[in-house]
């Protein structure tokens, strides 16, 4: 079975890998690029722990083949902070204890960042529905939703 050569951009870096066409983008990020921030919680697009953006669009990296990433711009949780400066969402998640075990956190941060880029002033309901594909089993979502909405408020005040 021949492998495919893929050139793509991840968090601004040009990267290349060889992949079997059956391997998902998530497999490639984790196993070939050693970017293990995105997690595989289900492999069926139901939990969102593998969330990344592809050309600015929020997707589950478990529902996309590695070979499809050729020529795309991919952003993962590892690219959210700018150097040593955490994104406001990252700071707020720590401050609010919006994580317990932390396994869903990378996906939720990627998804929440995508929300705030599209909708700087989401209602609680909009935030909950946007994040409905990001399962968290620890928190009951309360502190997550508060962290996202407070970050949105802070970003609005700052701009």
């Amino acid at each position, binding site marked *: 079975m021949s492998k495919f050569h893929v050139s793509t951009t991840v968090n601004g870096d040009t990267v290349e890998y060889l992949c079997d066409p*059956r*391997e998902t983008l998530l*497999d490639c990020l*984790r*196993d070939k690029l050693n*970017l*293990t*921030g*995105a*997690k*595989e*919680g*289900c*492999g*069926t697009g*139901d*939990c969102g*722990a593998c969330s990344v953006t592809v050309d600015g669009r929020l997707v589950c990296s478990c529902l996309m083949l590695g070979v499809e990433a050729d020529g795309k711009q991919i952003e*993962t*949780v*590892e690219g*959210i*902070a700018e150097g040593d400066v*955490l994104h406001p969402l*990252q700071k707020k*998640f*720590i*401050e*609010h*204890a919006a*994580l*317990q*075990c*932390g*396994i*869903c*956190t*990378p996906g939720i*941060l990627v998804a929440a960042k995508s929300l705030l880029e599209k909708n700087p002033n989401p209602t*609680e*309901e909009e*935030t*909950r*529905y946007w*994040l*409905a*594909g*990001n*399962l*968290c*089993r*620890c*928190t*009951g*979502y*309360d*502190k*997550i*939703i*508060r962290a996202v909405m407070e970050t949105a408020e802070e970003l609005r005040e700052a701009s």
Partner: protein
Amino acid sequence: MALDDRKTQFTFVGTRPDRPDGLDKVTGRAKFGADISAPGMLHGAILRSPHAHARIVKIDTSKAEAHKDVKAVVTRADFAELPFQPGLEGEFWNVLENVMAGEKALYDGHAVAAVAATSALAARDALKLIEVEYEVLPHVTDVDKAMAPDAPVIREGAADYSVPEGMHPNIVRYHESGHGDVEAGFAEADLVIEDSFVTEATHQGYIEPHACLGMLGNDGKGELWCTTQGHWIAQKTCAALLGIETSQLRVTASEIGGGFGGKTTVFIEPVALALSRKANRPVKIVMTRSEVFRATGPTSSASMDIKIGMKKDGTISAAQGVFRLQGGAFPGAPGDMTAMCAFAPYNLTNVSQIGYDVMANRPKQAAYRAPGAPMGAFAVESVIDELCKKLGLDPVDVRLKNAAHEGTKASYGPTYERIGLVETLEAAKAHPHYSAPLKPGQGRGISCGFWFNHGGETSVSLALSEDGSAQLMVGTPDIGGSRASMALMAAEVLGIPYENIRVTIADTATLGYNDVSHGSRVTYASGLATIKAAKHAVEKLCERAAASWGIPADAVKWENGCAIPSGPNAGDFDPRPLADITAHMGQTGGPISGHFEATPEGAGVSFGTHIVDAEVDPETGKTAITRYTVIQDAGKAIHPTYVEGQYQGGAAQGIGWALNEEYVYGDDGRLQNSIFLDYRIPVASDLPMIDTVIVEVPNPGHPFGVRGVGETGIVPPLAAIANAVSHAAGVRMKQLPMSPPRILAALKDNG
């Protein structure tokens, strides 16, 4: 712990600092179970039975072994031979039988063979080359059917001494307890209600599948990295299952992506080690989500009969319960726990409870957050609610009237020390939620809940550095922010800033034995151990200061991070801060450390009261939770934000269990819903904000008053929600989950 050792005024405890591992966890840097690799690593995969119950006639692995990418294949023959014993006496045998089937496959998903290959894809492909010949046997998955005389026998001889003669062999443990005379009590009652309840099995639903990386040489020395709630139990169990010495296997716990009790045992870890021993290379195994559902521990399903008598004034005159719990094809279903917890919130003159542990063709149950307690609470608190309704009594008042307090003889035997149930009920009554108006179609429910909490074997080590910082090594994996709590307690004793303490979850080679992170024990037991270890270090700090001042050690005390003379008679010396002492420790006697190894026994039982509002669509049977309040006694909240988080998480899991989560088996005995699409845990849009009230009634068994908070929060929700839904729908719901088809059917039956 002596009372004079207790502390009530705090500097650090009770504050809400950022968790020490926060940065790692928001940047993707934290290493969870599947986030590691090793040079030369192989990938393992496990072949699983498609049958609920089948004799394994033959396994032919030759084609898989011949595949060029396959480096090892293992079956049961590659593990140690362990003695079979009844009940839980032979738990290593039970775990081995679950990890890799012997003569029979006992449930859909039971492991029968495994391969290690050069890639994950190759390993999965190679599984298809293994040929297994099965003789399919009759199966049973329902608890009541598994107890029936004609039920297929899962395993002869599995019942232990507790089971009375004449019961079906699938009944493997039996519990009976209580006090008083229930028949006399029922005779005194003005109203007796007797009813039956059913709950389906649910899964812990942690988002991180089981994952491990094992390396074992034929010299009997090994290394294991795994996601676990307890790496010492993993060490001990893997060593037993592989026939090696415990100390020769070093186990490192990864960051853990949720456990809730489900990661307190081993599944894939011994398999990875067995494959590694055969291939002489490291082997990584990561479960798929479907494997997690099919082959790791769900909770038990339950069938229960409750009878409660009440007087017109709300006094419970007698209470009786029979609790039948199905825990898969192995002993261990917590029928005893269910029985002991069910009536524990109440001060009862006459109480009787029976618990059954029943085997069926399902995966081996594992602990799930207060294992056994939520089901019993659902049944009991539903009947109490119905009694209140029929007698026209306020449900909080009735619970207050019957509430257990200090000195009450508990339904399961002991006499309570200081407990906080009454305080949670009073807080519930005073909470604006309890008196808020309801909209049409809504109902309100309340419930109390109890959990024992646990101490457990605990080791902690604390070392001071020259610059005055401290490193704390604990052995309980941090599932929900416990590093922060440990650092707060150490800071409180040492008197140095929280940020100056680095908390590490030590591996099995660097610390003595630690029980699993379970039983709500981490903040209690590792916390107590941390306090003791820090005090141990403080003693040495005081000794060094005393020596430098030329006064006796007992003339020095520790205050605000400094050694000071204990009184005017001890002499007049300037306080010596911790960093001043440690700066010279190399010259004054060497390194200063503190440690603690023991089994703290004063965990302190815990109670909570929940208030919930639910709205039911009468045309579709769909329920929305519109408001939720958790009130629970924490003893002392070390980091209140993470205590709230435990309360909220317990409530959310309870909402899932009450409304939509269930294991669905087909007539063929196969699990029908082994993905998150159809095993429906609550999503963000399903839930309201979850309000919390932290009640603090100090636990006399902890220096700072801590009671565990992790588990009690899942005990009241099933009942509280069932009560709310039953009021909203106008019909008593007796089966969980209260899925829309069940509610709609109940509404139709009710006319």
